[in-house]
């Protein structure tokens, strides 16, 4: 098995998670870790750096994993691509649409390199099942989506997500981006977007930006999102209305289990009341007790590296499109 010489820049929660997954996947040989905060590297045996440029220039890795704050992500991704490294970077791909367009320009010059962004939700079991249900056509065509993604966040805390100069946006950019990516994953691009964001509780914190948005595709499919840091409970719900039925994704299996049990429920349109209960068609629910999303995501990256092939999910096009959606919502 080919193993790629890899470095990880940014050893916060995501960097640690990628580190574990890369070791489990087996196709990566992590030689060095980098974080501006030296203490975060204490528990590791790999070579340690606090300067990311020095880390890349000294290690000369084949793969760079970028798990840093949004403000520096584009600089590191571009620098790594220019040194002919393959790159796996967390979402969001920067603070702004301009950031991701800058990355796109660099990637076009280094088209032999593989670049993947971590839109991890696409690999969750419920999302895989929903995609399969939609593609199988058994429930007809998607006509509408309704997503709620919220968390209980203490926005008074001094952390980078609450600092606009580092994060570039609030909950919509940090978490709502996943829901918007799923919307695109299920129905494609949106041509019309109307949004509204406001600070409803944390008046002085950039982290809130409670967002409501309505989006429409050229085919007339409508989606609405409510992205919230003031849900006061972690919550993930996505309803998909189809011409012949309905799909609901509720909860999301995470390491903390704080988004509840991950479930997908679907039912067929039953206007003839075959179920015997008006307005209550027979429901089918799948619940999942294992989260393989991190491993599947990394395996897809590895496969692309080995085959020098196309990235299926988390492409630069996905990243640009979703940042364009966010840009439109913020500027509505």
């Amino acid at each position, binding site marked *: 098995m080919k193993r790629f010489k890899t470095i990880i820049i940014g050893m916060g929660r995501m960097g640690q998670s990628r580190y574990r997954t890369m070791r489990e996947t087996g196709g990566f040989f992590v030689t060095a870790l980098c974080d501006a905060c030296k203490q975060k590297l204490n528990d590791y045996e790999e070579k340690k750096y606090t300067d990311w440029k020095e880390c890349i220039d000294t290690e000369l890795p084949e793969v760079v994993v970028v798990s840093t704050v949004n403000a520096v992500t584009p600089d590191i991704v571009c620098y790594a691509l220019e040194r002919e490294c393959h790159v796996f970077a967390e979402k969001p791909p920067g603070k702004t649409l301009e950031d991701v367009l800058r990355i796109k320009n660099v990637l076009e010059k280094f088209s032999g390199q593989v670049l993947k962004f971590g839109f991890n939700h696409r690999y969750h*079991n419920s999302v895989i*099942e929903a995609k*399969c*249900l939609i*593609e*199988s056509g*058994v429930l007809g065509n998607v006509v509408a989506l309704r997503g709620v993604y919220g968390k209980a966040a203490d926005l008074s805390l001094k952390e980078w997500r609450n600092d606009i100069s580092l994060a570039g946006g609030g909950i919509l950019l940090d978490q709502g981006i996943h829901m918007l990516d799923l919307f695109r994953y299920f129905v494609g691009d949106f041509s019309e977007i109307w949004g509204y964001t406001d600070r409803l509780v944390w008046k002085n914190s950039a982290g809130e930006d409670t967002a409501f948005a309505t989006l429409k595709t050229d085919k007339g499919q409508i989606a609405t999102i409510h992205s919230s840091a003031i849900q006061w409970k972690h919550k993930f719900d996505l309803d998909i209305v189809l011409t012949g039925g309905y799909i609901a994704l509720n909860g999301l299996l995470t390491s903390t289990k704080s988004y509840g049990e991950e479930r997908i429920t679907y039912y067929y349109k039953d206007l003839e009341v*075959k*179920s015997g209960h008006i307005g*209550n068609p*027979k*429901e*089918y*629910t*799948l*619940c*999942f*007790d*294992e989260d*393989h999303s991190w491993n599947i995501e990394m395996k897809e990256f590895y496969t692309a590296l080995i085959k020098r092939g196309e990235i299926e999910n988390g492409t630069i096009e996905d990243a640009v499109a979703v940042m364009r959606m966010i840009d439109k919502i913020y500027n509505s």
Partner: protein
Amino acid sequence: MLRSYQYTNTSYLEHSLHDEFSREYEVNFAKRFVMENPSMKRSNVRCPVCQKGTGEFFYNKWDIDYMRCNKCKSVFAIVDDDALKKYNDSPELKKFRTEKNYQEMASTNRHGIWQENIDWIMLRTFRFCKQNKGLAVVDIGNRFEKYVDMIKSSPLCKAYDLRKSILCEDNLTISNGNADLVLCFDYMQGSKNPEERLLEVKKYLKEDGLLILGTRAGSGFDILTLKGKNEKIYPYEHIMLPSLEGLTELLEKTGYEVLELTTPGVMDVKYVFDYKDKLGDRETFVKSLLETGFQGMLQEFQRFLQKSGMSSFVRVIAKKGRE
């Protein structure tokens, strides 16, 4: 392995899959047959499912001993080969089950469930193969004409072979190693040697082909609760009731990759409910639940069983591994 749970929102407390006349006939026939063709009792029998543990006496039904594996907890009956073969080949039972009346009653009672099952098969086949139309399908042991017609005429099938069925001689249009999908419902529970059956089925499948298997599980609620009092489980019709653990182990041993394992059964509570008066003192909790529980509560309990892998109807999707 993706382990998922599936459950529905429907109550089956008022529902029956069987018409009383047919069920009574089948049970009476089996009872008479077993009395006339008894099997030898044996102890220290190795578990035919995991092949690691030993069967410990679990209960006796019509003088046939049912054992429970001390390792994988599968339940199996001690039966003689000759008696089992004679039962499976019985012209009287075959005649009864192929008669128009039996087939029509089955169709009336099960049509909805069959359609639901076909929809589910199409969906899961798409999930794991990315295609669910125009497949080469081998159906094993199906004994219902209407169900066969429904599968055959569904978009699922390009070619369809029915094998090991009382309805006809084996169809052999799909050569070994060319089936995209093998359907194997209620076939394992009548076998003394499940490993042999799984290996036989494997021969039909192409590489990465799918096996969809449904069977009664010995780890299910009604089987563990009712034991010998369970009128739905009897020799020589049901002699092999693997546990989920045992079944998974056996599939992996015989060269399958288990992709999904669910217990979507809907009848466990109903079966136990029907015989609650016969429950012994040891089943105080269950008896109390069934006597005092209102319909919504019992429905919720059935859902809990489905979700927890504790219903006695198990469905497995497995992929033929590469040699």
